[in-house]
């Protein structure tokens, strides 16, 4: 049993190594990882400084916009990190080679999820650290609730990423653009920068169906009132389990379907 686990971990590590080699082989790709989160943090940091003296909303908690933009990036980068590693295999037309090795689909998925964590941390750590000297704001001051928000948003990113990869497996590379765009359609109703009450009543129902909404509402509760809403965390986790289940099902069903259609050898640019 433990030997099987070792072999399985060996294959996950092999795939992880593949994506790390890729990341290392291209400095523009590594730079791109750091560039957007840092740029976003700079823009919203200056905006926060401006609003701090001109808006009662930001005055109540200086970091509310900065924390929101960084946590939004956890969701975005979490999804993109998974989808990009998946797309690397498609661009390289490598699925034919991979699936004649003993690599199981779930092991591949574990390596994609691990790579997503690495990409999120690599992308966000410089932005979060830079905010401390620039704006005297540390997102880490949120303490343990930050870990909970991070986990909720990362899991939602994975669910989305798996569903998008499933769609690409089914529809081919024509659906590649979804990897960059789908998450932004959820941004307005995730209430990243404003409370849910801002939305029209009918749209609030849709907002509360997203784990991200609970994370951002929970973040505001911590920053404004110092209260950690465990009910939000619990609901978000339950929703995430459902969405992850749906995302994983979409992925594995599409992979099986690709084997039936003979797409594993043909899939690529």
């Amino acid at each position, binding site marked *: 049993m433990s030997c099987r686990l070792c072999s399985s971990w060996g294959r996950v590590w092999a795939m992880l190594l593949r994506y790390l080699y890729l990341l290392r*082989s291209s400095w523009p790709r590594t730079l791109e990882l750091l560039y957007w989160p840092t740029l976003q943090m700079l823009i919203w940091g200056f905006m926060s400084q401006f609003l701090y003296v001109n808006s009662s909303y930001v005055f109540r908690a200086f970091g509310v916009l900065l924390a929101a933009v960084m946590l939004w990036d956890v969701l975005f980068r979490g999804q993109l990190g998974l989808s990009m590693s998946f797309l690397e295999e498609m661009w390289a037309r490598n699925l034919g*080679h991979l699936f004649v090795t003993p690599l199981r689909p779930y092991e591949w998925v574990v390596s994609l999820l691990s790579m997503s964590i690495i990409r999120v941390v690599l992308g966000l750590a410089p932005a979060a650290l830079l905010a401390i000297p620039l704006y005297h704001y540390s997102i880490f001051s949120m303490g343990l609730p930050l870990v909970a928000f991070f986990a909720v948003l990362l899991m939602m990113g994975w669910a989305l990423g798996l569903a998008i990869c499933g769609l690409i497996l089914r529809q081919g590379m024509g659906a590649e653009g979804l990897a960059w765009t789908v998450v932004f359609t959820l941004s307005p109703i995730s209430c990243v920068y404003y409370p849910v009450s801002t939305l029209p009543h009918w749209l609030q129902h849709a907002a509360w169906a997203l784990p991200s909404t609970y994370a951002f509402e929970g973040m505001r509760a911590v920053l404004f009132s110092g209260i950690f809403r465990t009910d939000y965390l619990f609901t978000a986790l339950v929703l995430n389990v459902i969405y992850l289940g749906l995302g994983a099902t979409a992925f594995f069903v599409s992979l099986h379907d690709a084997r039936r259609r003979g797409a594993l050898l043909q899939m690529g640019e």
Partner: protein
Amino acid sequence: MAAPAVKVDNLVKRYPSAVAVDGISFRVERGVTAALLGGNGAGKTTTLSIVLGLLLPTAGNVEVLGEDMLRHRYRVLPRLNFSSPFVDLPHRLTVRQNLLIYARLYGLPSRRERIESLAADLQISPFLERPAGKLSAGQKTRVALAKALLNEPELLLLDEPTASLDPDTGDWVRSYLESYRTRTGATILMASHNMSEVERLCSEVMMMKAGRIVDCGSPQELINRYGRTNLEEVFLHIAREHRIELEAAK
């Protein structure tokens, strides 16, 4: 007595628009080199893909090294491998990185030693640190072969192993494959439409046409049966016969 390396029964692969494989059955005994021979669209690559487990058949059974490939593919996959000039290794990784990753995927214990030894055998040592995308066709074929031999497979599946190679490199690859089979007792199943290659390497040939096996035997048996001087003439005879059949049907 050991089960055959490959045993295929009534294999069918049907797509919405065409039948790629139409009820074929064959077996390849252990330790031999066999070929699926046929023109474009005959069903060779489809058959190989099903044997590899990359493609699910519509009907039929496939046993590889004594295991049911549809039910227990993960028991067999560590014991086989595959190479095709049409499926490149990831271009941006170096040859060594690619081989290391595949060595890990196969769970090899002495990865670096195995890679060095294969690199020496296949004469790829000088470009181990070069990105796979920057190799010539001949170099790519040798690297693909190194990847395919990493786990010293009992069954090696090859799709057009010498396509797009110059005669000298092609001959070198054929010699290497022959020596590998002799040394390890492995079975090789290849899809090809290179007649001289098949004549030289294979002891069994399955002639495919429109998804069916229309004849089989050793190269010499086929040549004698059709009263020809070489396998290429046999191939042309069968292909033209098919064309006449198609025209008559129209």
